[in-house]
């Protein structure tokens, strides 16, 4: 095995335990890595990944209170914060490995089980980077979103390196889905399944059916996946999507609630639950989901105004039943403050926020407070900081403030 030259490579170590962190950093520096950054938690890692590109990411699965290593991986791969050519090595314990292997949709490039020696880590890294080199053309094409090229490159890799057949087969199947060539994708996944029940192939089959609009067949495959893999919570998300398409909104909501209970730290799932709950006018569930989403969004790739505004919207909708309780009120204030801090530059978001704030004050029969906010709003419109209220809003305010 040829030894890799690490001197031009950048590494990121993510580990919450000081002892292990120092050890791993030392190991990587002994291997000759040109630069090594360290993060103590997933949230810090996201910030580093947003500003720098890394070749190797060594992340512990267990990262204390925040996101775990798998959630971090899913987030940064989903949002393409790390390129396909970068290597993600997960450090696991015997119990956490099941969660990592069971994730199916987003898997690390490799894993190493604690405890490991310096020699073993070096060997793993060498091999992983060697494999990445073999797959280089494939991954470059994937990074460019050129799926046709990725398929061609993957076929060449299979011919040269038969051991990578499974890996390349999966890439080809998923690229075919991206190219909307569902029939071809389905037949690839089916022919793999004929040989062996590989979870990724069953997942591919389920997705193919979903994309072809064969919802019942898709449902069947996803249910099978859920039975086979206890830790594959994403199957619930897909099942919910199917139920929504079938018009079964309530069942979709129940499915998402189950998924959220199993894995509460998934931001996109909380948002999805919030969205469906809003359409069902179930504002209590919506508020809870968005409140968690607001909490999770802060240090993530999905930190957009929408999450915060939806949380406020759920609370405003609750005022139809009467004024907010003091607890709900403080949830409102807390999210409102965050909007003021981070998203007040957008004129439309600002106007939406003013509207919500006035509604909550009006529900509380605090006419003066509401009026004051309205006046500030009108001032802001003059200076062009925000957009004007809608006609409906203007009528409502005219009635409320007698202006």
């Amino acid at each position, binding site marked *: *095995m040829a030894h890799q030259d690490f001197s031009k490579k950048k590494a990121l170590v993510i580990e919450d335990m000081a002892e292990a962190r120092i050890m791993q950093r030392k190991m990587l520096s002994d291997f000759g890595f040109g630069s090594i950054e360290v993060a103590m938690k997933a949230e810090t890692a996201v910030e580093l990944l947003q500003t720098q590109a890394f070749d190797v990411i060594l992340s512990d699965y267990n990262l204390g209170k925040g996101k775990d290593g798998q959630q971090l991986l899913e987030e940064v791969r989903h949002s393409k914060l790390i390129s396909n050519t970068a290597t993600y090595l997960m450090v696991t314990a*015997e119990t956490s490995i099941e969660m990592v292997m069971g994730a199916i949709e987003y898997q690390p490039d490799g894993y190493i089980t604690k405890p490991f*020696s310096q020699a073993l880590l070096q060997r793993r890294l060498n091999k992983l980077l060697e494999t990445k080199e073999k797959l280089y053309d494939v991954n470059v094409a994937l990074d460019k979103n050129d799926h046709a090229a990725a*398929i061609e490159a993957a*076929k060449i890799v*299979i011919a040269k390196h038969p051991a990578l057949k499974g890996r390349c087969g999966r890439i080809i199947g998923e690229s075919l889905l991206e190219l909307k060539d569902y029939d*071809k994708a389905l*037949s*690839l996944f089916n022919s793999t399944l004929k*040989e062996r029940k590989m979870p990724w192939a069953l997942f591919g089959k389920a997705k193919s059916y979903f994309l072809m609009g064969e919802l019942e067949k898709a449902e069947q495959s996803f249910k099978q996946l859920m039975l086979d893999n206890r830790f594959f919570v994403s199957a619930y998300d897909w099942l919910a999507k199917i139920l929504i398409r079938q018009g079964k909104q309530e069942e979709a909501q129940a499915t998402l609630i189950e998924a959220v209970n199993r894995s509460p730290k998934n931001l996109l799932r909380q948002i999805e639950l919030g969205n469906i709950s809003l359409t069902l006018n179930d504002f209590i569930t919506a508020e809870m989901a968005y409140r968690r989403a607001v909490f999770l969004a802060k240090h993530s790739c999905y930190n957009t105004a929408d999450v915060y505004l939806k949380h406020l919207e759920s609370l405003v909708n609750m005022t139809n039943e009467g004024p907010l309780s003091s607890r709900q009120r403080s949830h409102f204030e807390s999210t409102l403050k965050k909007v003021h801090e981070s998203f007040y530059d957008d004129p439309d978001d600002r106007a939406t926020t003013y509207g919500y704030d006035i509604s909550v004050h009006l529900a509380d029969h605090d006419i003066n407070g509401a009026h004051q906010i309205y006046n500030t709003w009108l001032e802001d419109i003059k200076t062009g900081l925000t957009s004007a209220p809608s006609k409906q809003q203007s009528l409502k305010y005219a009635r409320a403030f007698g202006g």
Partner: protein
Amino acid sequence: MEKLDISTILASAIHESKNQVGTLLYQLQGLKEGVANKEPHHKKIVVIEESLKKLNDEWVEYLYLYRLASDGYELHVDTFLLDEFLDDQVFALQPSATAKNLSLEYRCDADLTGTFDERLMTAVVSTAVYNALRFAKSKILISAIQENGYLLLAIEDDGVGFKPKPEQEEAFLEGNTGLGLYFAELSAAAHVVYKRSGFIKKESSPTLGGARLCVYLPQSSQETIDLG
């Protein structure tokens, strides 16, 4: 008080202890770095390190054994180049063999591939090798071949070989409970392709004369994927 399942308690107790072994290993590694190779303490540290590693591997085996026996193990197969897989095994176990002045080697075709659960087979091979370390006179060999639709992983040594049946009771008294073989059997059987399950065979080694443990893992007959 609610009665808890004793096997679950044992499994989590093992897990706790295993984590402590991990911490000890890390600390020992730090200690080893501060001691020069030639110092007498260095050798002792290596002995402790090897024992802890073995303990760790054994507990991994017991954890998997528990899951396999209670149906809680989810098999995760992938395709591997056997040359790499066996090289990994020898790499991890070499220090233990060297400490006992035994040679440990592997043999397989350079382009042989096989599909199996890597973690499980790593535990099976290490269990078999640790066992062979107790009996081998000078050599242990790990090998892999493709045979009638099965991948055959064999671990053999030049010791006295498996004893005939009547003496097995004695082996039990010596502390060899056969747990390792049971583990290998369950691990092999967890691999299923088209209703063909994996299995193990105990025999004597035709080349080395000692014991030979054969682990048969079913492979797919047709090795092509319709790539579209």
